[in-house]
């Protein structure tokens, strides 16, 4: 059994981590959507306010032009420009409002800008947002300031005069940028907190579950005294651990009782049988003739009872065994040794014993038990194969042990039954044996987590023991 990398699943593959990641991603998307909406609402509101301000200004100036003509307008534009420049000079920045008034020939009459922006075509839609180089109105400085985005509106007044009203977007752009930074920072933070929290949660769940897995692994290898640690947090893990532990307690109790019964039966039957046998032996030493013969028969009968008892007890014992005495077996050599034990018997009965063993096949198990199982299979095969027949022992590289014979075989409907205890096909019971041979093989197979399959060998029986190669 490949023990046991299943328990060490990486963190990112755990359900808890995946769940946490899913939630983190979901909340990130949700908060990103909310923040984007907020950003859009705030910025469009800002844009609307700026446009409303500009529209009102433009309306006021066009009305002034209609009332007081170009001179009136020039005066108003000039005074506003000065005022804006003064405001701007405090901050060393371009003024927030921009004005420009030109005549039909394009000469500047008044305003904060030096030229009609080239980027603004004459025949154009009214509203535009343009990047412009604005002059910084500061004493001693007569150069262009930084390029800023300007929202502007321009009209051509009757008489060819052109009027431009604009607002530099410095402040709103800064606000926009701050908003954007804040939004992305929030989304990133949510993502990080979600992922980190997920990892932490995942790790604690993994740790708790791993304790269960580890305990289960140790129990599987036969250490029934293992318990799952209870951490005292009274959470659902502790509740689960407590339930599993009481279940384990119960199983251990049942196994212990089974073992005790087996041991008591063994002890309570073996000791009197031992006394019986020694009495018979002592008696037979002191007598002769027919009486001695009868006593010998009684001793043989006792030995048969003992053999049957041993068979039953070892099947029971194999069932209750721990895997503590397991080792890595060279299955090839186990098979070869058993084959060697039986080759003489086969030869004597004129049965051809064919042996095909793959080299170096390894599996985990108990050497004695596996040898006994293979021995029982060969024993059966040779016993039921008539002289002149064939018996084959095969071992594949995948640790599949097959014993096939050319005997009468077992009818398909009886194959399951012969694995039960005391079932013999030979109802006359003329062959020696107690009907426990195949049951023991089945018990050994089960103990090794192996499968025992009986099949037709056409003619004969083919018994296959599939071990887990390792």
């Amino acid at each position, binding site marked *: 059994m490949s023990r046991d990398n299943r328990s060490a699943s990486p963190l990112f593959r755990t359900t808890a981590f995946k769940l946490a990641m899913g939630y983190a991603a979901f909340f990130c998307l949700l908060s990103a959507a909310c923040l984007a909406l907020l950003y859009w609402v705030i910025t469009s509101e800002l844009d609307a306010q700026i446009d409303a301000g500009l529209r009102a200004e433009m309306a006021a100036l066009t009305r002034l032009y209609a009332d007081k003509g170009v001179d009136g307008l020039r005066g108003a534009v000039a005074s506003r420009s000065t005022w804006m420049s003064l405001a701007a000079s405090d901050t060393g920045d371009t003024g927030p409002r921009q004005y420009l008034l030109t005549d039909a020939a394009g000469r500047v009459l008044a305003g904060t800008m030096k030229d009609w922006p080239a980027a603004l075509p004459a025949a154009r839609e009214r509203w535009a947002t343009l990047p412009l180089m604005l002059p910084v109105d500061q004493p001693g400085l007569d150069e262009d300031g930084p390029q800023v985005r300007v929202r502007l509106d321009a009209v051509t007044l009757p008489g060819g005069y052109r009027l431009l009203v604009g607002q530099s977007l410095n402040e709103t752009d800064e606000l926009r940028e701050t908003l954007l930074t804040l939004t992305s920072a929030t989304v990133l933070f949510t993502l990080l907190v979600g992922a980190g929290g997920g990892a932490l949660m995942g790790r604690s769940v993994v740790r708790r579950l791993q304790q269960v897995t580890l305990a289960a692994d140790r129990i599987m290898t036969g250490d029934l005294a293992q318990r799952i640690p209870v951490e005292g947090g009274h959470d659902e893990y502790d509740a689960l651990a407590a339930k599993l532990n009481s279940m384990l307690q119960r199983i251990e109790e049942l196994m212990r009782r089974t073992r005790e019964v087996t041991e008591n039966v063994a002890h309570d039957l073996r000791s009197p049988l031992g006394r019986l046998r020694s009495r018979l032996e002592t008696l037979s030493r002191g007598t002769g003739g027919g009486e001695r013969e009868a006593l010998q028969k009684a001793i043989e009968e006792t030995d048969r009872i003992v053999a049957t008892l041993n068979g039953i007890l070892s099947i029971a014992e194999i069932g209750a065994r721990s895997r503590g005495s397991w080792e890595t077996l060279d299955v090839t050599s186990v098979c070869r040794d058993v084959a060697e*034990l039986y080759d*003489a018997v086969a030869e004597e009965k004129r049965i051809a014993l064919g042996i095909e063993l793959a080299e170096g096949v390894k599996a985990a198990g108990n050497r004695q*038990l596996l040898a006994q199982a293979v021995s029982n299979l060969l024993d059966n095969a040779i*016993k039921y194969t008539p002289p002149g027949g064939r018996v084959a022992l095969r071992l594949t590289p995948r640790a599949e042990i097959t014993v096939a014979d050319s005997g009468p075989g077992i009818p398909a409907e009886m194959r399951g039954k012969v694995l039960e205890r005391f079932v013999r096909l030979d109802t006359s019971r003329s062959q*020696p044996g107690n009907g426990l041979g195949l049951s023991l093989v089945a018990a050994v197979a089960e103990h090794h987590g192996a499968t025992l399959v009986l099949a037709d060998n056409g003619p004969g029986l083919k018994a296959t023991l599939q071990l887990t190669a390792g």
Partner: protein
Amino acid sequence: MRVLIIEDDADTAAQLGSALEGAGHEAEHAADGERGLERARSGGHDALIVDRMLPKLDGLSLVRTLRAEGRGVPVLFLTALDQVDERVSGLEGGGDDYLVKPFAFSELLARLQALLRRRGAEAAETRLKVADLELDRLKREVRRAGKPVTLQAREFRMLEYLMLHAGEVVTRAMLLQEVWGYHFDPQTNVVDVHVSRLRSRIDGDGQTPLLHTVRGTGYCLREPG
């Protein structure tokens, strides 16, 4: 041979004692672990027969204590529990052999003999000789009356064991345990067939038989006469 029987079942102990005395040995009996330990410490025994389950002090602890005190007297465990793990813990605890109840006296006597021999110089001998049968453990050669005999590896191991215990009874279970390393009873008497093959190799050609069958018990390789 002086044998101390530490066994709480009085009946079994009495039967054992009379059987040992019948075979010409001297038997002493202790009915519980503590008394057994006391007697064993007094020394003078050639072998101990110790039951695994004893009142006051169990057999395994008793033998462990003796071994810890540096006493190397051969120990044969008796038990009503036939489990592989039991056997292993018994042998690891300092037992030299292990016999499951019920057993034949002949099996017990044969094993006691083997234990005593094991204590001897068997391991040092490289050439074994019984009558005109010779076995060289280093060259792995066997000769009968000077003529080489070809044996398979298992047959060689069997003959080696029988020759090491020449003149003693060797049971089927002992051969199965020593030559094949198996602690279970095969359903068929496979050992018999191997022994008869071995016999045909070494006792063939009208030579004086050396390998004898002891009825109901096992085999014995001994000098003729």
